[in-house]
């Protein structure tokens, strides 16, 4: 699975996710990526793209939950993402997210996630494991 989230200079948010699915999966099995609110979601507050074990990401509506915690609980992006990732089964979820204010978050409860981010302020990060 691959994905990207972005907020542009005008404050518009968008997300995109794409995948080949699960190796050796049953033909016809659909994962979290195309299920809006599970692996992919964006609203006016944030944009989210998730990866990991699709069945768990769907059960926990990961992408929508991050947005909902911001929308209904007023959590900051980082706190909302941390709450959702901590609440999902260990080893099952990774996500990248960006907020309308340009905050970036890359959270996962797996041993690794291939990830990268950059901001206009100059912050840049590329990584696999959490050092």
């Amino acid at each position, binding site marked *: 699975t691959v994905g990207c989230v972005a907020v542009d200079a005008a404050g518009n948010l968008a997300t995109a996710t794409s995948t080949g699915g699960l190796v050796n999966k049953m033909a016809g099995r659909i994962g979290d990526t195309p299920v809006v609110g599970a*692996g992919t979601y964006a609203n006016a507050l944030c944009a989210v793209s998730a990866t990991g074990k699709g069945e768990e990401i769907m059960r926990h509506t990961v992408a929508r939950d991050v947005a909902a915690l911001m929308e209904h609980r007023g959590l900051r992006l980082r706190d909302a993402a941390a709450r959702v990732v901590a609440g999902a089964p260990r080893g099952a979820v990774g996500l990248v997210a960006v907020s309308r204010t340009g905050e970036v978050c890359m959270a996962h409860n797996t041993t690794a996630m291939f990830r990268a981010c950059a901001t206009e302020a100059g912050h840049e990060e590329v990584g696999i494991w959490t050092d």
Partner: protein
Amino acid sequence: MGWALALHGGAGDVPRTLPPETREPRLAALRRCLDLGAAALRDGRAALDVVELVVRELEDCPHFNAGRGSVLTADGTVEMEACVMEGATLRCGAVAGLSTVANAVSLARLVMEKTPHIYLAFDGAEAFAREQIDYTQPMKGSQQAPQDTPAPADDNSQTG
């Protein structure tokens, strides 16, 4: 705080002993895609264009499980899926069960922009993809835009 972007490949139990010949091409691809997306945002491109641009680049990279690098099902086939979503409008498009489309993310965006639906899958999605290719042939100019036949007023065919 200005523009920002983040991108990902897979997440899971990746051993730290990953050999450099496996690790480095992936890191290089992440850096290349990050630079591509950051340059586009710096040039004032819209977020929706940038996420499609970056994911297409990742789909074309054989080191990630999407597009060219997609894994195989138990039947030895490829079934790709993708989704795009725009925050301000909540517009979204999604595809699943694709095996002949090079960039599933762009087809998902076409579903969002050229159909009244959110989700197309398997044969219907493949047929829509072929239609889009036909539509972009040189004869595009002579192509009549499909006439919108008005939905019957009194039926409920427009609800789930």
